[in-house]
């Protein structure tokens, strides 16, 4: 009899919990990022941040919009950086999972691969990604679904322009650029060739095929003209190889990075004289002064039960932790979870104070960032810049 009572009580608890979850509706959200693969640095950390935010929101009981409570349901397939896989996954997200809000992609080749299908579904969903190739599409007819969630490199308020100015102040006359021969690489070459030209710095460019492992020959070729800095690749996977081979062969000891993380420089710090890296947030410093950053680092550690990835965490500035919270805030402000046009309008008018201080300009995100300069021996200096403020 006692057993039956315990069983009945247990079943009652299960029924109650089911009842609670059924009473709350879910808002499906999608994430289209490379969580594995040679270009996964960004997608991996973005997925970590999105999962953490979804967990926090749901654990707090969800969120209320127009008198109804909702929970988030995350669908996050791994594109592995492959546009064909990403296209199938996006179709599944929109058509089977009925997702209206997609975070990512960060990779330009992935965005280029899904762009036609995404455009066909304009007005039905929002895509919030950091892909470099998204920039040229923003605001164009049929591209209302598109929100770019990263600072743009060029223009008077671009972080790239600010970084090249920083280089100029160091007296740099010539830079060698070694970039991957793909969509993002080509956009970066075009963008930075213009910025360097405007600032009077000579640029020499070499491209390499994805999958290249030995860069010694092309590094020797670039080093022949004695450039002051090497501006290599955009993903940690190749940066590790390039920086190691450049320093091992004594061809380059000064580096300038606008994508990827500080980690490849730190790994080779004994042989590096200077490494300037665009770092959306230098967490080691920011967690000491910014309470929201400190809370984010602590939440990450508690949720994933591992140390905080300081090296790649700055890349969580694109379609990551803050953006999930922003989306929820925008739904609340718009008073709807399904009218994507209203939610987008609410997002665009928002100035969000989270781990980053985020606002939007012409469908593109703007936030303050750090320029990290690792000097000889590994000593680090950090400069904080905000494109919205004159510098």
């Amino acid at each position, binding site marked *: 009899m006692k057993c039956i009572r315990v069983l009945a009580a247990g079943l009652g608890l299960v029924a109650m919990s089911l009842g609670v979850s059924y009473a709350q509706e879910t808002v499906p959200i999608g994430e289209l990022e490379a969580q*594995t*693969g*040679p270009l996964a640095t960004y997608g991996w950390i973005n997925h970590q941040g999105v999962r953490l935010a979804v967990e926090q929101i749901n654990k707090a009981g969800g969120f209320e919009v127009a008198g109804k409570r909702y929970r988030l349901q995350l669908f996050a397939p791994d594109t592995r950086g492959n546009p064909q896989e990403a296209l199938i996954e996006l179709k599944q997200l929109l058509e089977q999972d009925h997702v209206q809000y997609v975070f990512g992609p960060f990779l330009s080749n992935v965005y280029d691969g899904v762009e036609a299908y995404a455009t066909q579904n304009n007005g039905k969903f929002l895509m919030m990604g950091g892909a470099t190739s998204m920039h040229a599409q923003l605001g164009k007819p049929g591209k209302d679904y598109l929100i770019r969630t990263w600072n743009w490199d060029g223009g008077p308020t671009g972080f790239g322009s600010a970084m090249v100015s920083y280089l100029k102040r160091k007296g740099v006359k010539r830079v060698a650029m070694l970039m991957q021969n793909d969509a993002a690489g080509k956009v970066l070459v075009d963008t930075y060739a213009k910025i360097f030209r405007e600032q009077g710095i000579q640029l020499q460019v070499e491209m390499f095929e994805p*999958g290249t492992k030995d860069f*010694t*020959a092309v590094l020797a070729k670039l080093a022949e003209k004695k450039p002051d800095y090497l501006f290599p690749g955009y993903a940690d996977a190749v940066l590790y190889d390039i920086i190691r081979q450049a320093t*091992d062969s004594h061809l380059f000891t000064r580096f300038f990075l606008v994508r990827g993380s500080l980690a490849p420089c730190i790994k080779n710090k004994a042989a590096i004289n200077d490494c300037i890296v665009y770092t959306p947030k230098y967490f080691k410093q920011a967690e000491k002064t910014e309470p929201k950053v400190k809370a984010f680092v602590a939440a990450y550690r508690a949720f994933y039960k591992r140390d905080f990835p300081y090296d790649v965490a700055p890349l969580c500035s694109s379609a990551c932790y803050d953006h999930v919270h922003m989306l929820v805030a925008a739904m609340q402000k718009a008073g709807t979870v399904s009218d994507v046009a209203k939610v987008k309008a609410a997002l665009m008018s928002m100035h969000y104070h989270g781990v980053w201080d985020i606002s939007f300009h012409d469908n593109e995100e703007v936030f303050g960032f750090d320029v990290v300069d690792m000097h000889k021996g590994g000593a680090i200096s950090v400069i904080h810049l905000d494109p919205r403020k004159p510098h």
Partner: protein
Amino acid sequence: MPQIVLGQLLNGAIVGTLYGILALGVTLTFSITGIVNFALGAFMMTGAYGTWYLTSVHGVPYGLAVPLATLGTAVIGLVADRALFRFTRNDLINGLLVSIGLIGVFDNVTLMIWTSTPHTIDVPVGGSVAVFGVYLPRMKLIVCAVLAAVVGATYFALRHTWAGRAAHSYAQAPEAAELMGVRTEFLQSSVFVYSTALAGLGGALYASLYSIDPTIGGPFVLKAIEGAILAGIGSVLGALIGGIILGVTESVGALFLPLSFGNAYGLVFLVLILLFRPNGLFAGRR
């Protein structure tokens, strides 16, 4: 400029020994079992991942991880031979199909276990050596020396041991060798497993020079086959020299032409050689 060319001649020769060790595996397997084992690239990848796993995950010293990973790869090679390749002896098409199928299995198992995220190991021997003003990483020189020594030892064993002479005689006249008491099945299995061990060793040493991911084997086995054809199938030292010629062609070619076409330089060179020597540079020489 001469210094840069010299640097790339040396670098190309070093990288070429990696192609060479795999080319040796290709040439031995083809000579004795009659198949072109495209899966040697997957065995190389296995050796590289084994080394990374032992050193970075379990803290095994690199010097110990290399033989362990090589041995592990050889054991997998033995299993593959007994389970699959012994049924494809002297059947080029079936051997090709099985080896291509095996590449898919290896790639997907690696993806499932370790994902496609690249991994690096800490360089066991850092620093570089200046040779005529050209800095060559010490680790690259060590890798080159080890691989050249292994090819040399293989050459010596094939010429001066009974097993080596048995392999030669089998390659020339299989039935006569069998009549003279050569245990052909054992010989074929041994050569197959040895080839996979060579590929595993190549991968283990590769991991100390470059980042690794599940796709590294594909391009390397193609270069190895190019190297073996360039040298002439069946030539042991030729396989090494073929690999080195390819490595040098790529490295020096990248100085004067865009790196984006790097893979084409070796192929163009191969076509030119085959136009004048259709059986390869060292055909007929063991």
